[in-house]
């Protein structure tokens, strides 16, 4: 635009179970809004063009790239970030605990994105669990440290435990 006009909107959304209202520039992407607007710095910003998966968050239950969606598009949505996974007292989720147990992270930069991709995956009981399935699901998350084997091991371990737990209560 020749004359730079600040285009802003007020948005209201639910983030990690809490209703939030904030003003954002319309060009601000969702992950920047979560980090800078709401102070939720657990979601990371990597490539900013949809390749690395570090910014993955859930919007209405679906794992999406936080850098490829505008914050204003999440007006009215239910957003979940990595901060929602552990209990308030710091107790890790089953998946997080499995990541710790299997040494599924080194630098940890990609981990929030991977955990949120798996957060969508663990709610879907229709798919048969297999290493291939997990590798396919994680194909959109780049990790430059681990070589993925420990991530896949952790994910298989936790997904199996989560399924078993669900089966037990059904």
């Amino acid at each position: 635009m020749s004359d730079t006009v600040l285009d802003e909107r007020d948005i209201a959304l639910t983030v990690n179970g809490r209703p939030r209202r904030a003003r954002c520039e319309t060009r601000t992407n969702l992950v920047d809004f979560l980090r800078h607007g709401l102070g939720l710095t657990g979601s990371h910003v990597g490539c900013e063009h949809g390749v690395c998966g570090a910014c993955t968050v859930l919007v209405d239950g679906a794992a999406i790239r936080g850098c490829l969606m505008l914050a204003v598009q999440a007006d009215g949505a239910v957003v979940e970030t990595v901060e929602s996974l552990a209990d308030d007292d710091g107790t890790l989720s089953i998946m997080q605990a499995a990541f710790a147990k299997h040494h599924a992270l080194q630098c940890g930069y990609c981990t929030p994105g991977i955990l949120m991709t798996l957060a969508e995956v663990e709610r879907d009981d229709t798919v048969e669990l297999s290493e291939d399935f997990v590798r396919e699901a994680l194909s959109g998350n780049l990790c430059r440290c681990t070589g993925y084997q420990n991530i896949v091991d952790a994910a298989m371990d936790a997904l199996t435990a989560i399924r078993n737990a669900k089966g037990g209560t059904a």
Partner: protein
Amino acid sequence: MKCGPFRYHAPTELGEALELLGGMDNAKALAGGQSLMAMLNLRYAMPDDLIDLNRITGLAGVEEEPGGVIRIGAMTRQRVLERHAGLQHSMPILRQALLQVGHIQTRNRGTIGGSLCHLDPAAEQPAIALLYEAEIEAASAARGSRRIGMADFPAFYMTPAIEPDELVTAIRFRPWLGQVRHCFLEFARRHGDFAIVSAGCLVACDAAGRIERASIVLGGVGSAPLRLVAGEALLKGEVPGDAVFRAAAATAGDIEAMDDATYSSTYRRHLAQVMVRRCLEKAFASEEGAAAA
């Protein structure tokens, strides 16, 4: 990088979106955003106005019309299509191709109409649309709605033959009836990347087992997906088998292929032949390839 500034519009009706688009000089329509948002972030795209189509009701969904045409709304997300039971039955090749589109995080947002309009030469959905000779519905405020055959839809490299005031509203597929062999294959350096070359085929045989009808598409080779018409003609009337598959695949050696810094046209033509052969072999080898397409 971050997006440059733009004025953001979120119409809730198609008519409103078309009015906006018709009255603007440098506007972009935002569908799923899995290509455009990246281009905005990198400032390859610098629109003055961004028209977000995601709040428009009625642009997403799959409906079967009387007469067997399946009409897919332009804003239908790829993840919805890959999980659609009806489509899995009537056009299983669509799911096979969609599972090779990006990753679950991008398919959760990406739309079929967005992919068609972005028109990457190697993209799966334009290739499938061409394979089926789908029709594209486009609408403008000034001239109403019209249909464009997929063969005429690409104007040139990554540019659809729609006017600046038009939006794609739906894609119309006519599934093949009966027993149809199908396969969609890609060759890429990394999983989820755009293919260097992709190949798709639909093949129907008559009661005697001879090929009655064949459609072969190649992606990533030309500036837009292309049909391997010579190969299709060679297959017709033949009994499926290795020799005839090789002969059909060899016709891909004559097509005009793109040349860039990474992959030469010679390499693309070679790969096109390999991929067509593999695609035909797989269509007839697997149980999955035998399902209705």
